[in-house]
């Protein structure tokens, strides 16, 4: 009898426990549904808030207020802390506001999640530039160039390399920049005028005139009136001492571009060189001789003025009197000499002109007249050629 009662008691306890467990599971299911509903509402609200603060941050950053953008991005991140886009923008705002170390912290965190990401590497490179850390900058720029990009990877890599080239040029490292610029030019698509012009300009910066000319000519093949390509091509031709070709490109420029200081100076110099250079092919002996005479007269006048102090800057030394004497002697010798002898003295007389121009430049600064500039360039070209 007692055994039966104990058995009943145990069974009833187990039955009760089953019921409680079943009720608990039902309650759990209900709570799960309620929590799902509440958390969905919460997440929606939180994402709305995050997006709103992010949009505020973006507009502040784009309107040039990085400090205001910082607060907005931080608020945004407080709601969506794991959002990598928000973190990236916050890092950019931090960098723009001058907080390079803090920006680096966020970017390194992002980079650890996606190590090959080109965009993050590029941002890190910019931060390294800001921190004046050249090894890091080079490392991140290269990682950006060879990294992965979500959209338009070829153009993005090209832009990253261009930034690297500009950074190296800005750091005064043209020899380091040269190889990058050549690689950039090689990877420049032949149908994009702005990219061709950018590559050409960088090639001009490292004195690779012929390659630069090639880029500008490619750009002109796409758009023959593009003013930047015309300017670049003219400049390259000018540097290559092909003055008539340079003048031809400059003359195709619209009036407003042609009248800019640099272009108008180069154009005037090119025209002067065309009219005074005795070494241009196809000139008659008489023409050559006349050009030398004009060059001598011009340099004698320039040096005389400079010696008299009319154009000399205060405190500058007197020009070397031997130069003026040499020019005068050449002028007087040429007056007496027949044409054949004048042709034989062409090189030595032009050398005297060059020395006189250099002496004048040392004492009185860079020449202002196109002819004097042209004579210096002709002398430079001859000196370079003879070396």
């Amino acid at each position, binding site marked *: 009898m007692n055994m039966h009662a104990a*058995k009943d008691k145990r069974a009833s306890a*187990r039955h009760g426990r089953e019921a409680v467990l079943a009720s608990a599971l039902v309650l759990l299911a209900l709570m799960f549904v*309620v929590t799902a509903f509440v*958390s969905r509402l919460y997440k929606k609200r939180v994402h709305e808030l995050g997006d709103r603060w992010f949009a505020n941050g973006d507009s502040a950053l784009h309107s040039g207020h990085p400090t205001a953008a910082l*607060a907005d991005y*931080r608020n945004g*991140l407080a709601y969506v802390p794991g959002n990598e886009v928000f973190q990236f923008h916050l890092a950019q705002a931090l960098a723009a506001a001058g907080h390079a170390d803090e920006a680096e*912290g966020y970017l390194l965190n992002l980079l650890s999640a996606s190590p090959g990401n080109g965009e993050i590497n590029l941002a890190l490179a910019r931060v390294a530039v800001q921190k004046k850390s050249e090894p890091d900058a080079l490392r991140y720029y290269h990682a950006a160039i060879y990294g992965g990009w979500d959209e338009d990877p070829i153009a993005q890599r090209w832009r990253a390399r261009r930034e690297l080239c500009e950074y190296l040029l800005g750091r005064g490292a043209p020899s380091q920049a040269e190889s990058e610029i050549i690689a950039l030019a090689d990877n420049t698509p032949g149908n994009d005028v702005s990219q061709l012009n950018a590559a050409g300009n960088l090639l001009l910066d490292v004195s690779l005139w012929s390659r630069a000319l090639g880029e500008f000519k490619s750009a002109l093949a796409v758009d023959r009136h593009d003013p930047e390509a015309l300017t670049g091509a003219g400049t390259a031709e000018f540097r290559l001492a092909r003055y008539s070709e340079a003048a031809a490109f400059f003359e195709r420029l619209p009036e407003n571009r042609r009248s800019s200081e640099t272009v108008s100076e180069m154009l005037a110099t090119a025209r002067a060189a065309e009219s005074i250079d005795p070494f241009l092919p196809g000139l008659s002996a008489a023409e050559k001789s006349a050009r030398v005479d004009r060059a001598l007269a011009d340099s004698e006048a320039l040096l005389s003025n400079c010696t008299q102090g009319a154009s000399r800057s205060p405190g500058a030394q007197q020009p070397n009197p031997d130069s003026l004497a040499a020019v005068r002697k050449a002028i007087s010798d040429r007056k007496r000499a027949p044409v054949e002898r004048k042709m034989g003295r062409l090189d030595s007389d032009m050398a005297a002109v060059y020395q006189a121009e250099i002496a004048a430049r040392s004492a009185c600064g860079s020449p202002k007249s196109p002819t004097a500039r042209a004579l210096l360039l002709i002398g430079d070209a001859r000196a370079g050629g003879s070396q």
Partner: protein
Amino acid sequence: MSRPDLANPPAPDALPGIESGSVLSRMGAVYHGWMRRLVSPRGDQFFLVLAVVIGVFSGLAVVCFRIAIEWTRLVLLGSSLTPSPLRVLLVPALCGIPIALLVIHAFPRARGSGVNQTKTAVYISNGYVPFDTVIGKFITCALAIGSGQSLGPEDPSLQMGAGIASILGRRLKLSQERLRLIAPVGAAAGLAAAFNAPVSAVLFVIEEVIGTWSAGALGAIVLAAVSSVVTMRWFLGSESLFRVPPSQLNDPAELLAYAVLGVVGGCFALAFLKWIGAARPKIQALPKRTMYLLPAAAGLLIGTAGIWLPQVMGAGYPIIDQALHGEYVWHMLLILAILKIAATGISFLSGAPGGMFAPTLFIGAMLGGAVGGVEHHFFPGLTSTTATFALVGMGTFFAGFLRTPITAVFMVVEVSGNYSMIVPVMISSLIAYLISRRFQKVPLFDLLTRQDGVVLPSIEERRERVRLVVEDAMRAGAAITLDPPESVFEALRRVEADADPNRPLLLRARAGEWRLVDRDELRRLATHESGASVPQTAADLSSKGPLPLIFPDESLEEVLRWASDWPVLPVVSRADPSRLEGVLSLADILHAFRTSAAE
């Protein structure tokens, strides 16, 4: 009509409407068998299943709790991290009044952090945590933390988990022993979900609440912690609490820099502990009516500070994240650390409900960053960033203030998802812990309960108590050993030649078995009083045994239970149980305990 026999339900094939031997009937049989085993009061399986159910319940509760805190903050303070000064000043102060009313009149058990209340429940009330504590904690903490009081949601989550576990245990009519165990299981679940850190939660509950690595509890605690974290991640995502920039220790010499952080963190933790310990009794001694005003006054003070530095308000997780990204200079970090200590102390002392974990992490991160910044100033060659110092600082201050060094190390790893800085965290935390322990004997939670007039077992004291072992009490060479083949005459000759007439005789019966021999029995057999015609050996002696084997490294407390049954116990080598190391008697054990107490 007779009652149905619930203990022996009818066989499934006899159930009405179900064809005997059908698939359904077989499934029914399987279900009944499974359910019977599952809900058996002695079944471990049931306890483990219950741990999972507790974990899921706690996870859901913590998700709702975190959402409630955030929503309260959004409604009261707005969505910006830098709310308008008027809100910052008024909201915490005005919310202090309803908080005080709720805590005094509706939910008096919701006061405080929740850790020591859970410990009290485990040790005093057999694991009983009233369910109104869960509701009270939920409402009052959401209001307090959401309105800007400098407190965190982790310790309340721990208590809510314990409360949920307790009510489930009571409803399921668990045994007293299981009920005591179930509260820590729920506590681990609650803490794990709040921190998104199951390992740290398990360690904390073991280090601070139950104090032992009991195998029975460990499985359930781990299961509850894991299931609560999985539930929480289902709703709120699996990201770790903080995103830490990648860092590593490049030069071992830099550990010195972290040691300095350990010293500074230890000193700050000690100062905070001393302040709380000294100020709390004074606050409690104030007239009762002032209790209505204290949370509001605390809110006003915190709001005033928040006008200039709103970072000190609330739990402060986004600010820790910013510090971990090196967004603050060292002097700003130091100001924030000091202000947060003040704000947290004020909030806690005012009786506002809320936890100390999040503020502890905040203070540690700021302090770590500040120390890192100063060290960088003097040693610019340090490769560790300010952010890594902030990360290590969290563990350092946690270990120094809450005195749970193992939890501190693993918590830093878990909340940051970064394992590379574990060595610096270990060194720094240990130093902070040692400094704090050296100058403040009683840890925070024990101090609080003792101030409330309750003396709970101190886990730290228990951990560090000197444990007497058999080796400390045994007497080497104090017995005469006999081997079975030895002639009884030879044995008697040896025994009688011995100077000590009371030395016990132990017979090495066979490998690992020792028996006690009586001297008179030996003498009787050796003098042919037994009447045997053949020469007798020690194996023929009648003896008592086998004696329980004890080993030199065993605890004296464990051995005590056998000592009263036998006049002497053999202490043998673990490597060779037939080799006698010494003997132990009850008198030896008592003597060792007396000597130890006198020392």
